[in-house]
């Protein structure tokens, strides 16, 4: 009837009347209602879940970065400790130890901790105005090493002991091993939390989308019965749910990104204050870097795709079920007068 000329229709309305009426037709509404209570609730659920997932991702990446930085800072240096001895010229021994250590491949710099610095190190225990010459305090040489290509610690230890019997090489291995173990555990726990939050997000989004769609089943049915192809119905719902999920995931992701940006800004503004120093010591820097922001964008895309695909799958399944009623004799008795 769409292409039928009006003279074939019984008793057509006068053209001017039709025109007058045509002017009053409102802009065509979307087939799937753009807003309703369940749609808004779904948007809120998606926003909350994406916010939580983004926060978790940011927090986990921050913890991993901090753990790695601890590990790398402590493993970047080794220490040569020389115990005082009456027969020992300490300054010469320190210089010899530094020079000997620097002859090994994999060392990059050597730094003797001078008397003032040593006194500062001991200040918390021994107080100010300490005269190191009066106390048998060991002295330190800090050797910076190439982390990628570390020197042979055993050979260095042997050479140092042979040249200066009072020297003791501390390669921080015990600390490094503990820190590596702690960093791995932290990263593992973080990944576990991330997996849990992501699983919760995926399931929540899927169930919320299906719940919202179940309230629209009558629309699917009517479209199906007026001759819409399944792909058409699915695409209408996909468009609708893509909009909802983009709005929700966008809001949640942007809020999380804003939180990280604000924390990072606060930390940079409060640099060198006691509060900031404590926060930095505990949590590292709040900056999540471009990878973190990329992760947040990825979460938003994943949620949008997840919602859209769930909507498509659910609509196709609903249509399949409608057709199944047709072939399931046990269900026919619910449909007769």
């Amino acid at each position, binding site marked *: 009837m769409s292409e039928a000329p009006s003279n074939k*229709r019984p008793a057509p309305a006068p053209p001017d009347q039709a025109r007058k009426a045509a002017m009053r037709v409102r802009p065509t509404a979307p087939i799937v209602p753009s807003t309703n209570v369940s749609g808004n609730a779904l948007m809120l659920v998606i926003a909350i879940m994406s916010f939580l997932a983004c926060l978790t991702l940011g927090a986990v990446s921050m913890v991993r970065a901090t753990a790695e930085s601890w590990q790398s800072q402590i493993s970047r240096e080794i220490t040569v400790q020389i115990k005082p001895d009456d027969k020992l010229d300490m300054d010469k021994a320190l210089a010899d130890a530094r020079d000997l250590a620097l002859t090994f491949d994999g060392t990059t710099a050597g730094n003797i901790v001078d008397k003032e610095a040593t006194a500062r190190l001991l200040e918390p225990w021994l107080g100010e105005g300490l005269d190191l010459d009066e106390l048998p305090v060991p002295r330190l040489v800090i050797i910076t090493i190439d982390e990628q290509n570390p020197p042979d610690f055993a050979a260095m230890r042997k050479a140092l002991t042979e040249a200066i019997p009072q020297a003791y090489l501390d390669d921080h291995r015990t600390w490094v091993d503990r820190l590596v173990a702690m960093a791995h555990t932290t990263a593992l726990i973080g990944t576990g939390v991330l997996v849990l939050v992501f699983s919760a997000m995926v399931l929540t989004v899927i169930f919320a989308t299906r719940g919202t769609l179940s309230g629209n089943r009558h629309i699917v049915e009517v479209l199906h*019965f007026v001759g819409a192809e399944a792909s058409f119905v699915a695409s209408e719902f996909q468009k609708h749910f893509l909009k909802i999920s983009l709005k929700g995931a966008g809001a949640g992701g942007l809020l999380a990104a804003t939180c990280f940006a604000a924390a990072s800004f606060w930390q940079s503004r409060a640099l060198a204050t006691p509060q900031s120093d404590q926060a930095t010591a505990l949590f590292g820097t709040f900056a999540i870097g471009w990878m973190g922001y990329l992760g947040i964008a990825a979460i938003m895309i994943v949620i949008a795709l997840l919602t859209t695909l769930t909507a498509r799958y659910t609509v196709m399944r609903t249509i399949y079920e409608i057709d199944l009623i*047709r072939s399931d004799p046990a269900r026919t008795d619910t449909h*007769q007068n």
Partner: protein
Amino acid sequence: MGPEILRDLTFDIPRKSFQFLTGPSGAGKTTLLKLLFLSLQPTRGLIRMFDRNISVIPREEFPMLRRRVGIVFQDFRLLDHLTTYENVALPLRVRGKDESTYRSDVLELLGWVGLGERINVLPPVLSGGEKQRAAIARALIDRPEILLADEPTGNVDPPMARRLLNLFMELNRLGTAVVIATHDLSLMDQVEARRMILSQGRLDIYE
């Protein structure tokens, strides 16, 4: 499995024919219409539609077959968030047609069924009779080859029932086969037409 509603029915709906399907409540009129509309499958027996056995037609082809069939549901099945105009235009919209190509046709049909002044009204605001007319207009809008109407005059007054019947007959004269399920004897008495009477699962046809 539920009780057998219909059994041993043999009939055809010739092209361009006009018939009433009648019988007491619960006789299976709606079930029979649903079978003809591919929304139920018989537990046994054969239904051929447009020269094809519907039991072996792939699901993907149902939409194309349904587009050749117009149906007026007893419960109207209008979408509450769409206006009368949008509900009637829905079959054309899902076929991908541009609104400018069908707007005047839809308005003309709405004028004919007496809803010319209600085009922007949402179904919850329409009366039962108006909903029924909107549902009829939706079924007619794409000029189907066969029209199945389930109690199409159940909610309208006699003059409007007469007017709708005229519409169905006019549509039939233009080539559409019409099946009207009703138990309104006064409606059937207005037209000399084939009567298919369902009773206790059996079908008697009076030409």
